[in-house]
């Protein structure tokens, strides 16, 4: 009985201590003119899909859940978001060259069509981020149109 108490106390202390380790979660920034939302490429419901299904890992406008403030789940989140933003950040869309934009649009199309994105682990918790087959079709058509526009 006593050992159980000691273990429990140790777990609680450990839990409190790890709260002081910086999680590495990036800070949100206000949207500026470089955001894809300001781009003439984006039309119709596409922006809603991007915000709803992509922005939580691929932008500086993340909607943080409560467990983003609590270790150790905050560490996992930090990893995902930093990795996501490193490969593509919709908040800095205008910093990309035309070549990179086309590369990303093609990648978005491939990833969304194949169901790789949004990540399964993310959808498990964020059910409303799931893209319906119509959403996927509309995103895919949008990428085609946007690429054609850039290539013009």
């Amino acid at each position, binding site marked *: 009985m006593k050992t159980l108490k000691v273990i429990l106390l140790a777990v609680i202390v450990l839990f409190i201590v790890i709260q002081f380790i910086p999680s590495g979660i990036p800070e949100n920034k206000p949207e500026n003119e470089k955001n894809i939302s300001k781009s003439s490429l984006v039309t119709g419901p596409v922006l809603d899909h991007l915000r709803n299904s992509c922005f939580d890992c691929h932008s500086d406008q993340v909607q943080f859940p409560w467990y983003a403030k609590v270790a150790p789940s905050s560490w996992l989140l930090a990893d995902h978001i930093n990795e996501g933003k490193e490969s593509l950040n919709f908040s800095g869309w205008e910093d990309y060259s035309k*070549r990179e934009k*086309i590369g990303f*649009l*093609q*990648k978005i199309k491939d990833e969304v069509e194949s169901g790789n994105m949004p990540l399964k682990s993310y959808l498990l918790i964020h059910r409303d981020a799931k893209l319906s087959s119509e959403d996927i079709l509309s995103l895919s058509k949008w990428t085609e149109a946007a690429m054609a526009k*850039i*290539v013009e």
Partner: protein
Amino acid sequence: MKTSFFIVVILAIAGLILLQGTPVSESMQTKGSFYPSEVRKVIDTKCYGCHSAQGQSKDARNALMWDSLPNLNKSRMVATLDEIVKELRKNGMPPAGVVKKYPEMKLQNAESKILQSWAVSKADSLLR
């Protein structure tokens, strides 16, 4: 009479040789203008084994075929060139497993640079 017969035979043979030669030399020419020789050299020695019809891996063939790259539409071509640049920047190709098994397949820095600057300028020229 005999001479003219010989001329006809020689012309026929020459014609046959030329006909056979035409498609090959034509495709070489298109490739030559799309891929400068120093780029072609790197591709042939380090990339072509997997990224061509003879490649064993389906993933590699789906991702990139050097022979069909020149025939892609503009945006697909640019997207593929961008993917090439990204992959090379993170030293992703040839895959670590391949390099471990065949150390001579490792892409040297200079070779990677040749491919990268070619891919960037090719994409830029398409977007001008």
